[in-house]
């Protein structure tokens, strides 16, 4: 059997004393381990919040006594206990490593070492980052995915599939009511499935492909070290770049990933920024695709979004209480991604995403259909119309905002539709793009926010987001009108 690590005698004495405090309580964790954890001030044993660990012993333990044991021992060894314990273990680990490995005389480096140096040196790293963003996000996701692919698929649907579906449905069902459920303007196939397959899917596929590439190469940790200083000013740390970039793909997944962030404060700020300022890939793709034809509009949208991201982040950093975030990140070696791994990963994510959205998109079509039948849809849309006018948008934009409540990507697809039918243009397109990007996270994201951050935070964040989105839309519209910018 493996012999125990023997710590310096003052520490061993302390362990024995704590062990006797624990007494003969029955639990699955050996007393020596429990004593060591207590001496190292294990957070979940010491904290008030309930946890598995604590319920094993907390109530009856004399924590004051342990405190004094720690203090006495630290005085005796004139070092922090945590430190001394770790050091003893480390010493043994080093000995074992020495005994069982052959190390090179001279430290060698990987072949890609130069690439690492280029990617993190500020002079080369930042331009490389901008290039990656420009080609990865703008050209690949926006122009190629949101523009070319969506136009193609969407055109195909509009010209081939929809008319076919309309005819078939019309021959099967003589009643307009049933026809409208499946076909025509708001049908399950002609709207729900078309949105999911022709608009959302191509963009999301492209995004996930690109994101997998970033993940597997090991570039993400390098971005995080480049942006840490900037992110510190908005109450985050470089580590948050990973959920935020993922949020560009799907805010729902990203909200789950905020778990990896160090402090509660960081997690709340990141969740807020994800809900408010980070468009999901469908939105991003549609917006970039639409606005790329009008560079001035794109510039306004991008400037507004970046300003809000930094501004709200800065304010949130001031307002949300908690300790300042610290940043540490192990930088793994750059690795050549394997094509197989990337395709598998993209496929698995897409499958998840698609099955997540498809039922919702179909449900939305059904709801709209039922809403139209009962007049409820028109009622809500009529209610929203003044808001649209307030934002300077045509009243036909109201349904799109209603979709947006349901799913972000659904709203984005609606915007694409409005633009192609010539209803949204110029200034209105910019205002709609900004408001829709800021506007409410979709239902799935809310659900995850609730799960990860709790009810109070979710309500606070969601109501702030709605209020802020519409106010900002209003002011942006006024501002653009005053400045007489034309797109």
């Amino acid at each position, binding site marked *: 059997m493996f012999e125990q690590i023997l710590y310096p005698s003052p520490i061993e004495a302390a362990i024995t004393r704590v062990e006797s405090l624990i007494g003969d309580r029955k639990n699955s964790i050996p007393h020596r381990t429990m004593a060591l954890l207590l001496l*190292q*001030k294990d957070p979940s044993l010491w904290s008030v919040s309930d946890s598995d660990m604590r319920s094993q012993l907390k109530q009856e333990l004399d924590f004051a006594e342990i405190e004094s044991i720690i203090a006495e021992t630290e005085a005796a060894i004139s070092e*922090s206990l*945590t*430190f001394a314990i*770790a*050091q003893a273990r*480390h010493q043994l680990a080093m000995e074992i490593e020495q005994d069982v490995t052959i190390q090179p005389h001279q*430290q060698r480096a990987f072949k890609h070492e130069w690439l690492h140096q280029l990617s*993190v*040196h*500020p002079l080369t790293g930042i331009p490389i980052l901008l290039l990656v963003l420009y080609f990865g996000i703008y050209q690949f996701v926006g122009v190629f995915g949101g523009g070319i692919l969506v136009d193609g698929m969407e055109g195909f649907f509009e010209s081939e599939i929809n008319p076919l579906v309309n005819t078939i449905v019309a021959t099967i069902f003589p009643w307009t009511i049933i026809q409208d459920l499946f076909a025509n303007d708001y049908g399950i196939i002609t709207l729900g499935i078309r949105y999911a397959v022709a608009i959302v899917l191509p963009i999301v596929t492209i995004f996930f492909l690109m994101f997998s590439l970033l993940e597997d190469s090991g570039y993400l*940790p390098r971005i*995080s*070290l*480049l*942006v*840490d*200083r*900037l992110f*510190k000013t908005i109450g985050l*740390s*470089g580590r948050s770049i990973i959920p935020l970039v993922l949020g560009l793909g799907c805010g729902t997944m990203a909200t789950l990933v905020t778990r990896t962030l160090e402090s509660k404060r960081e997690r709340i700020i990141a969740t807020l920024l994800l809900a408010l300022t980070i468009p999901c890939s469908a939105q991003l793709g549609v917006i970039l695709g639409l606005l790329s034809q009008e560079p001035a509009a794109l510039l306004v949208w991008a400037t507004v979004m970046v300003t809000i991201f930094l501004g709200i982040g800065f304010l949130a950093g001031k307002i949300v209480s908690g*300790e*300042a975030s*610290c*940043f*540490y*990140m*192990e*930088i793994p070696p750059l690795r050549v991604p394997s094509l197989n791994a990337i395709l598998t990963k993209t496929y698995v994510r897409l499958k998840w995403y698609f099955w997540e959205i498809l039922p919702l998109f179909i449900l939305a079509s059904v709801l709209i259909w039922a809403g139209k039948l009962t007049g409820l849809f028109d009622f809500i849309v009529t209610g929203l119309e003044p808001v649209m006018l307030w934002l300077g948008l045509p009243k036909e934009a109201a349904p799109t905002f209603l979709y947006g409540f349901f799913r972000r990507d659904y709203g984005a697809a609606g915007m694409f539709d409005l633009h192609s039918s010539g209803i949204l243009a110029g200034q209105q397109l910019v205002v709609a793009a900004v408001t829709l990007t800021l506007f409410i996270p979709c239902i799935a994201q809310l659900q995850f926010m609730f799960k990860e951050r709790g009810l109070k935070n979710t309500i606070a964040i969601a109501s702030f987001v709605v209020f802020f989105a519409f106010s900002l839309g209003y002011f942006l519209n006024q501002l653009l009108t005053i400045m007489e910018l034309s797109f």
Partner: protein
Amino acid sequence: MVYQSFSVDYSPLNYLGAKTQGVITAIRNKDDKIVKKLLSMGVHTGMHITLEQRFPSFVIKVGQTRIAIDKNIASSIKVRVIGR
């Protein structure tokens, strides 16, 4: 480096220039969590350390491990400089 002059053999890492090499003499921070984190990532006293870069973040290499840290964490690593 100007600031090295006052304590050549015992400097917080954040006072050292890029490419400095040294041996870690102590790890101290008022936040206990940071010390624990560094220890568990394999940063211990007595180990050889290279400060690869200091902007935009500090990048250190300890053994085969490369870690990016911010200034606060860097300041908690005290180093005896052995060369550049």
